[in-house]
């Protein structure tokens, strides 16, 4: 046993798989996941989860992973985060966003700056796409003191589901400590930006999406600019598709986002670009309604970075917590013994700022990057 005092944590089922492994890696606690789809027709880990484990193995040094024969039990003993140049073929069952979300949580705590090249599906309807993470997660992390020239996500090739064929380069510097933040005032939305992307379809699709999305958003704000991104040739992946990512930026530098992708080829009703644009704009309005300083898909990232801060108070205002975030909070308590103080802020009667907000307060664990080498 790696740990001298504790025997690690045990969980059931494959849900929140990434959270558990990521938190285990950061806290150094062993984790055992049992009953992974044990009642399923195809029991055990799926290919994309196996691929995720392999990625984790690539960025760490000394991890021990044991999986039983049927794949229903996984034991993970974390090693130390190593980083460096990593190349990974992500399983096309899930998009790169699935893998990238975990890497975003781990990257600042590596031994050497991470330069990950992820290949696979860049955009699909299930997971947050690379464009979304690029435009929301990175500015969020910058607030925690993680920045620098080499901090970026670059979409080299775009690959739509189900074929994939995309390529994303994610580089991130390492930090010894994370700054505490006080994100209690989101500010007003000053501009909306977006990317309408299309591959292996008519370049006009992008324009049609932009047109319809603007029609909805123009009721609120004149400052809207949606880029069209049409990739051709080798950069266009293997499957046709299109989609839209919208990001609203506030005066205080908070980002709220929404996105929508076309249904993968041969997996359901095709959608019209106009509908997609309009629906996506409405999703953004919904996101604005929820509000907060962090959008719903990055809540857990923000909470994690607050937890891993110095022994100082961090505050962040969120919209309603997503189920994923709620589970994440529980996991944080399991792994780091950190509880958040949660206060609900009801909107005033005359205020027209969307729904209830939640103010999350916590004291960091005083985490310092034990992987980084000092000279």
């Amino acid at each position, binding site marked *: 046993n790696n740990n001298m005092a504790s025997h690690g944590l045990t969980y059931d089922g494959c849900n929140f798989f990434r959270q558990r492994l990521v938190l285990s890696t950061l806290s150094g606690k062993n984790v055992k996941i049992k009953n992974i789809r044990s009642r399923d027709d195809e029991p055990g880990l799926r290919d994309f989860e196996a691929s995720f484990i392999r990625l984790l193995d690539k960025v760490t040094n000394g991890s021990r992973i044991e999986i039983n024969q049927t794949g229903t039990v996984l034991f993970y003993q974390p090693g130390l985060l190593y980083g460096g140049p990593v190349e990974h073929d992500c399983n096309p069952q899930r998009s790169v966003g699935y893998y990238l979300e975990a890497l975003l949580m781990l990257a600042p705590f590596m031994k050497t700056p991470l330069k990950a090249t992820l290949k696979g599906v860049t955009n699909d309807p299930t997971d947050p796409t690379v464009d979304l993470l690029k435009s929301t997660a990175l500015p969020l992390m910058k607030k925690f003191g993680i920045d620098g020239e080499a901090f970026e996500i670059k979409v080299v090739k775009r690959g739509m589901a189900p074929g994939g064929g995309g390529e994303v380069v994610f580089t991130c510097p390492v930090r010894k400590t994370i700054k505490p933040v006080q994100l209690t005032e989101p500010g007003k939305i000053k501009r909306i930006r977006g990317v309408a992307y299309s591959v292996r379809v008519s370049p006009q699709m992008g324009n049609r999406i932009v047109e319809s999305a603007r029609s909805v958003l123009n009721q609120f704000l004149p400052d809207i600019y949606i880029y069209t991104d049409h990739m051709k040739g080798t950069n266009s992946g293997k499957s046709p598709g299109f989609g839209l990512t919208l990001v609203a930026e506030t*005066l205080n530098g908070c980002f709220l986002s929404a996105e929508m992708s076309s249904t993968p080829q041969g997996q359901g009703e095709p959608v019209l670009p106009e509908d997609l644009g309009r629906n996506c704009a409405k999703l953004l309005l919904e996101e604005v309604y929820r509000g907060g300083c962090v959008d719903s898909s990055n809540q857990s990232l923000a909470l994690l970075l607050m937890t891993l801060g110095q022994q100082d108070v961090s505050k962040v205002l969120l919209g309603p917590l997503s189920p994923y975030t*709620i589970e994440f909070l529980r996991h944080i308590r399991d792994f780091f013994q950190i509880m958040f103080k949660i206060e609900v802020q009801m909107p005033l009667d005359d205020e027209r*700022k969307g729904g209830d907000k939640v103010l999350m307060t916590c004291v960091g664990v005083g985490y310092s990057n034990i992987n980084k080498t000092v000279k």
Partner: protein
Amino acid sequence: MECNNDINAMIDLAKVADLVLMLIDASFGFEMETFEFLNICQVHGFPRIMGVLTHLDSFKNNKSLRKTKKTLKHRFWTEVYQGAKLFYLSGMVYGEYQTQEVKNLGRFISVMKFRPLVWQTSHPYLLVDRMEDLTDPEQVRTDPKCDRTVSLYGFLRGAHLKNKGQVHIPGVGDFQVGDVGFLSDPCPLPDARKKRALNEKERLLYAPMAGVGGLVYDKDAVYIDLPASHVNQLQEEARPTTELVQSLIDTHSTLDTKMAASKVSLFTGSATLDPTHISQHQHTREKEMLEEQSVWDPTTNRERRKVIFTQEEEEDVSEEDDSEGSDQADDEDDVECEETAAGGAPPQKKQKLKAETGRSGSCAELPAFADSEDELEMSEEEEEAGTPGDSGHSSEENEESEDELTDDDDDGGEELGKQHSEKESEEEMEEQGALKWKEGLQQKAAEAFLRQQEAAPNLRKLVYGSVVEVTESEEEEEELGGLFRVSRLQKSKKLQANALDCSRFHADTGHDWDVQEVLDSIRDCFVTGKWEEGQDAATLLKQDEELYGDFEDLETGEVHVSQPQDTQDDDDDDDDEEPQVKMDDEEVQKNKRLEKKRRLKERFNSEYDDGDATYFDDLKEELQKQAELNRAAFGDMDDESRVQYEGFRPGMYIRVEIGSLPCEFVTNFDAHYPIILGGLGSSEGNLGYLQMRLKKHRWYERILKTKDPLIFSLGWRRFQTIPLFHMEDHNGRHRLLKYTPQHMHCGASIWGPITPQGSGFLAVQSVTGSKASFRIAATGVILDLDKSVTIVKKLKLIGYPFKIFKNTCFVKGMFNTVLEVAKFEGASVRTVSGIRGQIKKALSSPAGAFRATFEDRLLMSDIVFLRSWYPVSVPQLYNPVTSLLLPAGQKDSWSGMRTLGQLKHDLGIRNKPNPDSLYKPVVRAPRRFNPLHIPKELQKALPFKSKPKQQQPKGKTPKDLQRPSVIREPHERKVAALLHALSTVHNYKRKNAHKVQHAKHKEFLQQKEKDEEAKLKRQREAKKKLYRVMGQKDQKKQRSSLKGAPSDL
């Protein structure tokens, strides 16, 4: 705390000390321990150090006293810092130090400022001042060696301590904290400060583990046995008399024995309790503990709930519960507490018990405590109902919470009901055993929900209402229920646990964004919407106007004046009485002016100061701001809930319960040794490879050998491990060293506990006993942590050529198989003579032979070698120094793995030296030179002088040249003898004659020489005579020619 003369205790205390009083016997001078301790302090952060010189009265001579003081002071200063405080105690009077001096010392201590040390401020720690064994005596009886459950008490220091964290007890090992609870300060500060002295009532003696007699401990109280007459003499009690000190000094017995021996009265005047009584009491308590423990399932805390406790055991039960349920305690209502308190038992405990029974029982029991219980708690429980197994709680809960989250306010009740029914059915499907307590949760939840609606929600209660497993999310779901629709209501639990792992928040809300009202609800989120009062553009403009409105255009000379504000005010106030308004007006205006002035000044100040505001200042300001925030964030909460968010604050008196401590900890307990509970960071409980920079201590006499075990003190820990020393080459390679350099830093790699980089460490060779020489072998700092090491040592593979072509050569003997060669294809090789080459390809015939090309032709006598680097593995030895587990009196005799040298010494092993390295007498063979051979041609050409002569002696004459020897007849022999005699005579005569002749001739030569000389003399005189005559003639001639010439003429 007094430190023993034991390096273990010295190391431990140096890590937790704020102030070190270093007593130095001036009559003796500095001792080795003094310097050792100073060096230990230096490594683990430098606490305040104050020297105290004692035995100054032993100096009879005043001058020598002054001199000693001065030398000691200066030496002390070089060690600590220039001007370090040194205190002088002149000497003992009647076995005590002089009161005035001690008072002064105390005053110095009280005004001392302590410096924050990095390790101490980032880790929580406890100097244990009380230890209690909670193990069930029955278990101890049946198995005296069983692991013990122990509770440790002390003031928390350093950082915040989280419940259920990991701790290290130096000298014992690593443990998981079972439970932490805080108690009231056993030695509170007096209310009013600023007094020079305390009044008698406030003088407390807090001397834990000092063996002050008559103390009995309970879970959260300490009882002191005082005779009734002593009550009025508290002061005496408070001042440690000699006897007290004496008793303090010679306590060796443990608390247990002391407790057994002492008598207790709970109230003054009441009958004292028998020791037996007490033990009985303890017994019952501990028994209960046992029960709990036996049922305890370490991974899942729920199993134990099934235990049914009798009324008598209440107290104990509650205690046990405490271990896991501090959270629980919090949730419970105060009302209940009071009720239970009335019953006589500690309030919390009872509550807990109730909760316990409630849970374990069926729902029929529910009403009994329903009033006091929170809705939240119930809701939580309800959530838990979904969990099939213990460990699965998280995922299941989540699911539920999702459900609830998505509920709408309006239809929440109904939907909830639906959910519940569903859940119930699911529940039933699942294993019944573990779920008994979950029955009736639905009802509870429903109740809870209704409550919620009417009462203003107390979030803390809602969130951390009851069960340990409760999370924040519950509250969420209740509070925000209105925002969401049920999204995954239909899915069963099981599916949920294995549902799609996706972070996206699917919004299935009914907001129809085509409706204008819905759109309006977020109108103000945009810059185009309405702004808050303070941030409205209009107000901002107005403020600006106020500030910057007045200005004079210097070019045109025009003076711009801002709009007078009061006009507006006037208008507003017009309705009021005129004079009043006037007064107000003036006042207002004055205020405004002042305000304006102030603001301008501020502005100027800030601008002016900006110039020399340094980065450091900014940083300081930021830190201060953050510190204020930290204080403010949880300042208004009560401790019970506060400890849940931020952990236990430093300064609290806490009780830490630890299970499964080795029994020796209790049986060999010795209060003389410090017990420290050091909290560990998140991954500091793990083991890995540590890379450190290390330097042999300059006062240590020997250098250290690679792979010899060494005892490190790192972080909280003391452990033995096997270091490998290495040096970094210019290309970043870590090359193994056999020994540490004499005066230089080198790298070291060990297998040990993960400790943050930058932590200092020290190493000692052994902790046993005390030696004359300096014991700290090395010091250094951690550089890097990893799960693998990169140390290499040089390895030269040697081969021999067996066939040589031009520059190509076949080499054998370097490898054994073709495969090995294949691995080294292309590697560069070299010969001893310096010819470089490359391995090309393996040969088939002698296994391991290969073809190699070189830059020049090799000789068969050449040796080919390949320089390579072989990775070295660090031995995975981590052996904590368990000095506290040793029997009392032998605690300084811990010995671990021995070094190679010690082993050899102890076992009397001497290595057989290599015979080649031994010295032998030198025997030299006589030198033989070959004859010089000159070619015939050359010989011919040489002059005779240089030609080789027939130098070789004549060998034996060949047979044909040998003459037969002549044998004479007797007559002939006589003739020959006669002839020989005659010839001898003749020879003799001839010799004599010759001699005579020789002498005669010599005489003749002398005579002849004489004659010759005489003849020469005569001739010379004749010549002289002649020349004289001739000269006279010439003179005459000349004279005559001068005067007689005319005559001639």
